[in-house]
């Protein structure tokens, strides 16, 4: 009964907000008519900074870094988690949220996406993912994140509160950033930038059936990369020693953090040979590395462990790459990596088809299928929270319900891995986040059409 009450209560809140929606509806429709290809600003208002302590009471708390607590309390203040447990002293000025029967999770983290960089895939003008040319190490994703992208509230409503957003391209794609999915500006959303240099390592391995040619082209590509890195090293030395005499070069400049291991190389690599060559290359150039995709990562487990290379699994709802592979190859990959002791996180749909980051809200189901095929539920949830934070080197701030970390968390009405569950409330650094979206707005609008009759 309490559950029902809560649902009603939150529904009432939503309906109140809908009055605001209705007021703005006319305006929105006008914008649609006037500039059809321009990205429009959505209707959700970024949360205000936390002003009072908030205590969530009675929920099952999925702490991730420790066993879950049934009927626990989560207390957070000034954007940080203060206390978690069964017995927590709640300050007098605290706002309390009755959440019995609900589940508290850390905000879900999509380890790699193109959120903010694109709107409608087929409308080029709304797509800022791919810069011209093949070598764009200096392209910086965070400067092109549209905070008013309609895709962001949709992902957020699914519980995804943090995402790495990365550019695309044939070869050297650019630098990614980790963003929080709430804020008035891109700057406000930023959690870490740069987060890595995203490179399509499969471009190093042409799929030629001619071994000789393949060897040649691979070598050619790697030499290009060698040369670029060498030049960047020299550039760094010169700009230190004779800054006035060194002509500036933004490409080379952009590679210095990579060489200084201030950001990792993120190599999209699926096949064994691609993964192996990315790992050995990064090792030989003394670069930090993250593998994205990782379809064959289990076969490279020893190498990955030896060089401490984590893997972002490029989605689990994925067809086998080779005809002979088992139908569940991608489903079982997380559990196989778990067993092999490779560090990994599970990515959402990424930028792949059909929806790409328009489907980022389905991230929990990418973890769920891994659980149906081998992981425990705890491991599956960890793979889209704390494990993702670890891969992105943000584990000190997010990824678990731990005192001292950011109060970036969600309250769901059920097991987040199950489709039917919905997110009821979300907080990013203690700010209460608007869970409305274009979809909910249109739903409300047309429900009105039919309820009139």
């Amino acid at each position, binding site marked *: 009964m309490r559950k029902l009450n809560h649902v009603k209560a939150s529904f009432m809140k939503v309906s109140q907000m809908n009055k605001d929606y209705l007021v703005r509806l006319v305006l929105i429709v006008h914008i649609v008519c006037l500039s059809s290809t321009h990205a429009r600003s959505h209707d959700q208002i970024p949360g205000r900074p936390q002003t009072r302590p908030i205590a969530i009471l009675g929920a099952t708390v999925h702490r991730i870094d420790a066993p879950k607590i049934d009927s626990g309390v989560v207390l957070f203040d000034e954007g940080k988690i203060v206390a978690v447990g069964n017995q927590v002293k709640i300050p007098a000025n605290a706002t309390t949220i009755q959440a019995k029967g609900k589940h508290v999770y850390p905000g879900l983290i999509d380890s790699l996406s193109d959120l903010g960089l694109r709107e409608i895939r087929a409308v080029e003008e709304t797509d800022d993912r791919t810069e011209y040319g093949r070598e764009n190490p200096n392209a910086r994703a965070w400067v092109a994140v549209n905070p008013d992208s309609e895709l962001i509230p949709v992902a957020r409503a699914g519980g995804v509160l943090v995402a790495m957003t990365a550019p695309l391209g044939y070869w050297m794609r650019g630098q990614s950033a980790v963003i929080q999915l709430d804020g008035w500006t891109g700057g406000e959303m930023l959690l870490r930038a740069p987060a890595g240099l995203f490179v399509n390592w499969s471009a190093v391995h042409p799929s030629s059936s001619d071994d000789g040619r393949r060897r040649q082209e691979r070598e050619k590509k790697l030499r290009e990369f060698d040369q670029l890195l060498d030049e960047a090293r020299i550039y760094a030395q010169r700009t230190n020693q004779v800054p006035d005499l060194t002509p500036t070069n933004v490409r080379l400049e952009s590679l210095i953090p990579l060489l200084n291991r201030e950001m990792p190389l993120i190599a999209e690599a699926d096949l064994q040979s691609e993964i192996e060559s990315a790992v050995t290359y990064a090792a030989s150039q003394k670069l930090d590395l993250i593998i994205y995709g990782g379809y064959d990562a289990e076969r490279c487990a020893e190498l990955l462990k030896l060089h401490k290379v984590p893997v972002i699994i490029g989605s689990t*709802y994925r067809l086998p790459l080779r005809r002979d592979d088992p*139908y569940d190859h991608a489903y079982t990959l997380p559990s196989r990596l778990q067993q092999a002791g490779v560090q990994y996180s599970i990515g959402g749909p990424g930028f792949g088809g059909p929806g790409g980051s328009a489907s980022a809200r389905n991230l929990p*189901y990418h973890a769920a299928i891994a659980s149906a095929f081998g992981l425990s539920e705890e491991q599956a949830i960890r793979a889209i929270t704390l494990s993702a934070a670890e891969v992105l080197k943000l584990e000190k701030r997010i990824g678990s319900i731990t005192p001292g970390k950011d109060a970036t968390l969600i309250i769901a009405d059920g097991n987040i891995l*199950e*489709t039917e569950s919905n997110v009821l409330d979300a907080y990013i650094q203690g700010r209460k986040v608007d869970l409305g979206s274009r979809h909910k707005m249109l739903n409300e609008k047309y429900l009105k059409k039919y309820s009139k009759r």
Partner: protein
Amino acid sequence: MRFASKLSFLFFAILFSPASFAQSLDTEPVVGLRDIRPNAFALTGATVIRQPGEVVENATILIDEQHIIAVGSDIQIPAGFKRLSCDGKYIYAGFIDAWSEQAVDYPKSIAGYWNKNIAPERSVSDFVDRAADEEKLRKQGFAVRLVAPQGGIIKGSSDLYLLGGSQRSHQLLDHTNWQHAQLTVPRSGPGERYPNSPMGATALLRQAFYDARWYADSLNMQRSGANVSEPEYNASLNVLSRHMHEQGFIFDASNERMALRAEQIAREFSLRIALRGSGREYRDIEALAQIDRPFLIPVNFPDAPNVKNAQSRESVTLRDLLHWDLAPTNPAALQNASVRFCLTTDGLEDVASFWDQVRHAIQCGLNPDTALASLTTVPAELFGMTNQVGTIEKGKLANLAIFDRAFVEEDSRVEECWVAGVRYRVQGNPSIPEETKWRGEWAVGLPNSTKSTSTRIRFEGEGYQISGVMIFEDLSSKSGSKGSASKNKNKKSSKTKELELKSLKVERDRITASLDLSELDAQFPSGISLIPVVQAFLADTDQPEPNPPVLNLQLPDGTQQTIRLKQTSEGATIASKAPSSESADETEEDVAKDASTEETDFIATQTPILRPLGAYGLSEPPAKHQSVVFRNVNLWTCGESGLLQSTDLLIQNGLILAIGENLQVPENAIEFDLKGKHITPGIIDCHSHMGTDGGVNESGQVVTSEVRIGDFIDNTDINIYRQLAGGVTIANILHGSANPIGGQNQVVKLRWGASMEAMKMQEAPSGIKFALGENVKRNPSRYPNTRMGVEQILRDQLLAAREYDADWRRWRAGERDGLPPRVDLQLQALSEVQRGERWIHCHSYRQDEIVATLDVLEEFGIRIGTLQHILEGYKVADRIRQHGAMASAFSDWWAYKFEVFDAIPYNGAIMHNEGVVVSFNSDDRELARHLNTEAAKATKYGEIPEQEALKFVTLNPAKQLRIDHLVGSLEVGKQADLVVWSGRPLSTLSRCEQTWIDGVKYFDIQQDKAVRDRDHRLRSTLIQKAMKSEPAGREISTVVQEEDRWVRKDIYCATHGGLRHETLSQGAQK
């Protein structure tokens, strides 16, 4: 003498029968002296294989001019015939290569078919030129070949040509009785925009046959005196209508599925057909045996797949490995299935490997007589030339292939090829006559030598690989010796000197060498002497002239002495010693070949022919049990009974017989206790493009209602298996969305391992794809470019179909005021729509286009089958309900195109709540694997109760496809299509454990593991074998990918961006 010549004349007269073969009319005036020479030969002493199975030992063949005039073992050789000894040789009838192609121009006349791909009037005879590979073919013993026109869909007729024969290189033997055709788009076509897909090509071909029939009927009607105007002259239809009656059609069948498709067409139009096969016939040999058509079969067995390095090895598929291993068994498989076939050089990269390949096939079980027949009597019969070619018989053309040994023997060689009496000796392919020319020892009477010495030259080796020594013997110590070879041998050790001849070169009539004679004996001059030995050989026979060879000794001082050589020992009696390096190579090669042969046999008997070939294929059909009972299951019936906890389900003969607790079941029932498991109806995907062969769009025209997805089902698509593993039992395979009126769809049941036809759900009513919006208006070079235009296309076509129907009604009612109406497949499909016999599945997004389309359909009294995608359906759910339309949507896709920016995941629930029958579909090979959790999104976003949500992927799509009386729910009497789940069926945490169709289990999660193990073992074995047998250093894979065997082009099927979803894309049609 006179008497003899008279006799021989008589003999001639009796033997010689006038040639049926059209003699080449040499109308060209002779410049200078005429030079006509007699051409009469007697080939003696050979083993003659007159026809397969009929062997005559020690036979003589008499050839006069172009023909054989006698064959037999006791034939007197008349005067005037050159005798050619063929002792030890094997003579076969000259072979017929039943396939080659020639580029031919497309007709330019406007009096031809509107689409130049239909070019039956083309004939190769205007274009055949000296072919570069003619000699290569003769070296393999081919005397005749078929030349077919290249390109086009109905390509034109072929000819048979002699490979040589007269002074002219290419001599027409006769026109064949065959037209050539293919069911796909030509690689080098006439530049037509339509068709651009195999199914479009097939539709065009079908239409052309209907048009040809109509043309003939119209002409007949007019000629029979009816008061109608003659149909406009059409050269293509004129030819085609005649050929349909009088001639056969050879269809390209680039795999076994194409062969079966051609058979469908043949039956549809009662055509006599043959099939140009692919070498893949073994994969479905029973079906191909059943159609009982002759095949032209290539022997281009693939090289071992590239498994040299890890990357290549990973990417090689079990299917390719199996094909590599099984391909050489293909001819034997055809033979054992009693299929009539010709072996051809089709696709052979190197024609010189032809006999190696045939012998490989023989090792794999092909009967040598069948092999011979496939190159002689079978093609002769097929092409109606048995009176001229195919056997060694009196009156036939003197086409002969002369082998040094029986052709089954390893390394046997073609020595000569005779084409219409013209003898071609194989060059560069050393033969025994050349050996006998030189091999042996010859006495040399050297100048200055005393009587007490003997000098000899000995030549050793074969063909052009000859070495020689000069032997000098001092006989002075031996009194009374005659110097015979045998006695000399005894003295070699002390008295004999041997000196190797240097710079030895062999030409056809001479050997040159050099040596320093003084090294033999001091009495000879020192310095390099040249010793060219010249022998005159009889030009025609390769037999040495009775005169001994002559040595022109050119001494160091420049003087020349001519010396006659005298043979002291026969070549044959001297053991030939080939150069050591070569012989070592050969031996090694032989050993390797032997080893691989043994292994081939070993593997070939073990390698299973999986259905379909490759990983996850079945080695035998799935078990069919009469009765099956599932005990104690949670049964999600999707019917009125709702969810039944812990109940029993009894299946009999593929149908649901009973549901209830503690069911009494027949004794023979197979029992499954599935306590704790859940069973749902099989999942039905109402929008799919998987299992198609060669693209899902015919985008060459705006209206392609004549095109049929059902023509191109790919029952080998691995996605069938993958989707079974996700519980899918039925899929609605739709044409793509490239045009407002697309092709006809096909509902299939995912019966993995079954034939193309058996995949089809025959009970499902017909349908057709329509499409609106961005996809169909995006091509700026054609109509329509707007939604306004789309609407008009629909109206215009429905009006046209209405008129078409009226024409036919009048005709059937007996009105004869004009020519008969033409069968128009495009309008026929649309008139079926108007009559309610074909359901429209319309790709649609925006509310305006949805309403406009429903308005148009209502104008014609048509109820739509389904609205597909229908992502703005929630905006006009009332209108949809009012029309009686059903909606098949994505659960939550959006933002991939502008027209789906308003798509919301609440769509399904809103429409459902407004009374519309809603399903969720995949339109995607990956998404189709978890439609159960897609259904859960109706609960997530619209609070649809889960039993109702489950119907979104079971009962509701069944209703939409008008098959809900058969499937879609688990109720007594319905087909037993069901899925066993490990837990709650809509849960992301559940697994599909079994999938059953018609009471037969097609997927089982346990069996799947066993199959993986089987495939892994098979794969490893074959890779080991490939590593051992591939040519050293080979790094290039020569395997033609299954998917590349015909043109596939689908501009509307681009890969999804980003992550690779699979190597081959037949992506979604959103």
